[in-house]
């Protein structure tokens, strides 16, 4: 192995490698995957001089600690957290120089859920079907980080950005998700379709990269029969038999057998990735663009 690599010292609760995702293979049952908070991943890549498709680390709640074997530039964004190099606090949301062998600690999220760690050169694990993303549903791509693992890095592409700090949206106190109803809203009672957009839900702790699960009023079906499996999109709000809406995130299955009452606007999904359990969720019906 070359010296362009990261040693994983503390993997954290769940840290995965993510890029723009594995698009174009849904017909084979391959989830799209990719960073849940895409704008945050894009920003840390820009800050360290990477191309947009470079792979970054996505942490979950508890951060991670890595040791680069060569000098690198890193930037941490997404969920705000303390960042330290060899124990000294350094900037969050800005490019930071990390000398060879130094310890980079990405702390627990102060607010939000997922922090993103961009490293100059990008994480260069072997791509699978054109993507380096970890897909937790089907197990494609590299496994989640484990203590002691070593991740190769690519060659640095460009000099890092010259910024002191880059503004980023704060994690949502209340998650407002704009939805367009359908394709299967007619499978629910009219009262339930109204309840879906009128009553607040809460983010369930059972949420993960596959779906944002919610707690709130159960939606009742007007049609009790089974729906033959059909293709589902990112942001689809599927309603399983317990009646609680699930918003499909990047690792969602490509086909599903429960009716989709609505679809969340893609622009609202990054905020969903940062909503901690218990956050109030409002689904707001909007027209199609």
């Amino acid at each position, binding site marked *: 192995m070359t010296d362009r690599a990261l040693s994983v010292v503390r993997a954290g609760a769940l840290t995965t490698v993510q890029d723009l995702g594995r698009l174009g293979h849904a017909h084979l*049952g391959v989830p799209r995957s990719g960073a849940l908070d895409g704008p945050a991943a894009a920003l840390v890549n820009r800050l360290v001089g990477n191309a947009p498709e470079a792979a970054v680390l996505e942490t979950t709640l508890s951060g991670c600690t890595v040791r680069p074997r060569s000098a690198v530039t890193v930037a941490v964004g997404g969920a705000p957290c303390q960042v330290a190099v060899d124990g000294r606090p350094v900037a969050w949301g800005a490019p930071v120089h990390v000398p060879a062998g130094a310890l980079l600690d990405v702390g627990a999220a102060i607010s939000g859920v997922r922090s993103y760690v961009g490293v100059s050169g990008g994480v260069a694990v072997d791509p699978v079907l054109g993507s380096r993303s970890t897909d937790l549903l089907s197990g494609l791509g590299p496994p989640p980080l484990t203590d002691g693992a070593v991740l190769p890095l690519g060659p640095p592409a460009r000099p890092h950005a010259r910024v002191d700090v880059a503004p980023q949206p704060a994690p949502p106190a209340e998650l407002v998700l704009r939805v367009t109803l359908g394709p299967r809203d007619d499978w629910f009672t009219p009262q339930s379709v109204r309840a879906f957009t009128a009553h607040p839900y809460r983010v369930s702790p059972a949420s993960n990269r596959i779906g944002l699960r919610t707690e709130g009023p159960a939606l009742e079906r007007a049609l009790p029969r089974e729906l*033959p499996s059909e293709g589902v*999109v990112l942001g689809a709000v599927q309603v399983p038999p317990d009646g609680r809406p699930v918003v499909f995130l990047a690792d969602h299955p490509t086909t599903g057998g429960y009716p989709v009452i609505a679809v969340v606007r893609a622009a609202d999904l990054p905020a969903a990735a940062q909503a901690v359990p218990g956050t109030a969720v409002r689904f707001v019906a909007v027209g199609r663009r």
Partner: protein
Amino acid sequence: MRALPVGDEALLVEVSSGEEAQALHTELLRRRAEGSLSVREIVPAARTVLLDGLPDPARLAAELTASDEPPTPPRAREVVELPVRYDGPDLADVAAHWGVSAQEVARIHADTEFSVAFCGFAPGFGYLTGLPPHYDIPRRATPRTAVPAGAVALAGPYTGVYPRSSPGGWQLIGTTDAVLWDHTRVPAALLSPGTRVRFVPVGSP
């Protein structure tokens, strides 16, 4: 044919049968190959085809539903032969459900030409149709926590082969050594929508 909008950039086209869905899928692939259709994903399923990543879903919806022309039937493709040992733990239950012997289940299954209606559940898992409707079979009342890779299984109108070990509730009738999914191979999936499949018995029943 109904075209239901899905969000801002997708369309769910609903047809009345699995055969029509396969024919529509073939037609949409043809249009994409000739350059008259711009779309990121074309996902066939039981009675629908999902188109995702469309620049103008409303226009395509109008175009698809205005045309009276039936889609071209699926083109004949090469038949993929899967060697199978009919040794599954649910063979006797399937035989009882069908009212035939276990050997007869194997004979009926191996005499059927299947085609991949759609994929899902796991990369490389194909939903194979071909058995007549009176052989439909319910899933197991209690799903298994681990079904081995290569298990040949039945559920509803479908036959499937588990590409890797996973939980599952299908009725297991046999085993194949064929590699259904290998991401280092091109193509990674042995079966894709439209592939014709035959099961070839090996070993003694």
